């Protein structure tokens, strides 16, 4: 088994818009990520970073290239096997939270475990409850998402992403809809998770301040990685994000 959790070689994604017009969103991307790394992906919109994230999350399939996640080659998987990997290996955190409305926080967190199966309702409850209190939402288990603030909703989403003990967390602009204070709190949770449990974090953001939380930064432009290197940490560690435009 490779020591790298992610091995990507010459990944290409072409969107066919019509018979004549096609867009090459990824033009041959190669990347390796170590276990326990905290990686941030940056780039302007249209640079290919979202396409890359979707492929990383087994939500989309590459046109060509090789993608190995935790020793599993993604190229020959059926849609059911992909669903299983999304369920067990990957925790998703989205910009728009993507919680089920009219479903309590607890039930939202339980959902991936429900699809995984093999546990009793009581065990499911227990685990979801402990994760919610870990992200600071103890006592709000039965609130529905529309009764929670953006920051709280994102915490629910984080708890949900963790319930099946995934190998990596993919966070796609997790602070994009949040104010400074909540952004910092969310990033603190991610940092803590990365440090304490050694979970691999992959974070997409366009804010340099948010990227500061990570250890390594790659930058996309026009479907290629143009920059890949460690973050030069600023003197202070917490409360990095000071002011945000608009």
């Amino acid at each position, binding site marked *: 088994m490779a020591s790298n959790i992610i091995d990507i070689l010459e990944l290409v994604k072409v969107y066919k818009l019509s018979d004549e017009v096609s867009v090459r969103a990824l033009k041959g991307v190669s990347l390796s990520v170590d276990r326990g790394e905290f990686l941030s992906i940056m780039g302007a919109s249209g640079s290919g970073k979202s396409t890359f994230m979707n492929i990383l999350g087994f939500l989309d399939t590459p046109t060509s290239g090789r993608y190995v996640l935790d020793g599993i080659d993604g190229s020959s998987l059926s849609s059911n096997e992909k669903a299983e990997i999304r369920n067990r290996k990957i925790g998703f955190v989205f910009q728009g939270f993507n919680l089920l409305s009219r479903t309590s926080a607890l039930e939202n967190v339980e959902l991936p475990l*429900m699809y995984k*199966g093999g546990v009793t309702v009581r065990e499911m409850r227990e685990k979801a409850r402990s994760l919610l209190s870990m992200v600071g939402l103890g006592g709000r288990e039965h609130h529905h998402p529309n009764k929670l603030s953006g920051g709280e909703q994102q915490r629910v989403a984080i708890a949900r992403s963790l319930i099946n003990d995934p190998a990596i967390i993919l966070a796609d602009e997790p602070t994009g809809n949040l104010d400074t204070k909540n952004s910092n709190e969310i990033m603190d949770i991610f940092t803590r998770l990365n440090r304490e449990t050694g979970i691999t974090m992959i974070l997409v953001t366009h804010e340099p301040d948010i990227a500061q939380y990570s250890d390594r930064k790659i930058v996309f432009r026009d479907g290629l990685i143009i920059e890949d290197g460690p973050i030069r940490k600023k003197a202070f560690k917490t409360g990095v994000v000071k002011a945000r435009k608009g």
Partner: protein
Amino acid sequence: MNFKNSFLTAVRAINKNKMRSSLTSVGIIIGVSSVIIMVGMGNSARVAVRDRITTFGSNAMSVYQSKKPLVDRDLENLRRLYLVKYITPIVYDSYVPTVFQGKNMLSRIYGVNNDFFQIKEWVLQSGRYFTELEILSIGKVVIIGTTVSQELFGNVNPIGRTILIRNVPFQVIGVLTEQGSSFSGRDYDNVLIMPFTTAATRMQNQNFYDEIYIAAYSEDLIPETADAVRLYLRRVHNIPWGSPDDFKIKTSKEQLRVAEDISKTLAILLAGIALISLFVGGVGIMNIMLVSVSERTREIGIRMAIGAKRKDVLLQFLIESVTLSSVGGVVGITLGIGVYYTIIFFLKWPFIISPLSVLVSFLFAFAVGIFFGYYPAKKAADLKPIDALRFE
């Protein structure tokens, strides 16, 4: 995800949209309850008709004349046949004005002899039958049905009183027990029964009979008896060999079969209409499920992103539609039985509920859920996770 969890998910989704879910079920409820009501009514009607016809006497037959009238001589000759147990001529007259002390009504006359009561199995609740003398002497005596008794006499005892039938005074000598109504609504209790001689001469001024009722000694002897009657009438009427009869012999068995055929056809027709309404209910479910799938595309995307497989999504929506239709089925069965019982109660028909029809209705509702839920569910399951997730 196991079945239990899929079920839980589906039930939660139904619960979140209570109003819509119950409205969706209404179609199925109406469909299933109408199946139950229609099938029940069909069965009850069949039994009601059979009961009515067998009161005519299960080993009886009737002879109609068509060209040559049936006359006194025929009656006397047929009576001599050793196969004939009872025989009565019948002279009909309908919508006859009947008056008692200023109260009047229209009734139906049967001119008969005393064998009529044996064949029809009609019994008197008070009074007496005709005497031989009254029949021979064209006696102006009458036995009345309960409707006539109630409308003309109320609480007064009618025995011995005189009523005017077509302005002819008649003495009431007996009152029948209640017979009920026929399927077509004819009231068997609105009758005036008098000696056939009286009906023929005083009422109709005719010297022939409209019909002759004959009872055989047993049900098995009916064909033989009918053959004997047929042979006799052909000889008397001088019908050459090979020519058709100029009379008709109808046994109650035949009548029973005709009635059964009619009511069976009716029952199938009614059940067919009910099935159509069930089908319409199914289309309603499909419609709502399609709306629901496109409304919840994003939810489907989220579920897929966190690990729902194709079959999980398929099962979730399928269970949702089957639950809607099955619950609708159970409610419909309950409602249907209630309505059916109420109708039957007022019609005084027998209450027949076959467990089979209940089971079939339920299974049908269940099948409707699967049939009409499958397409929307498949549509949901076939969504690509990334497309569903991006759906706004």
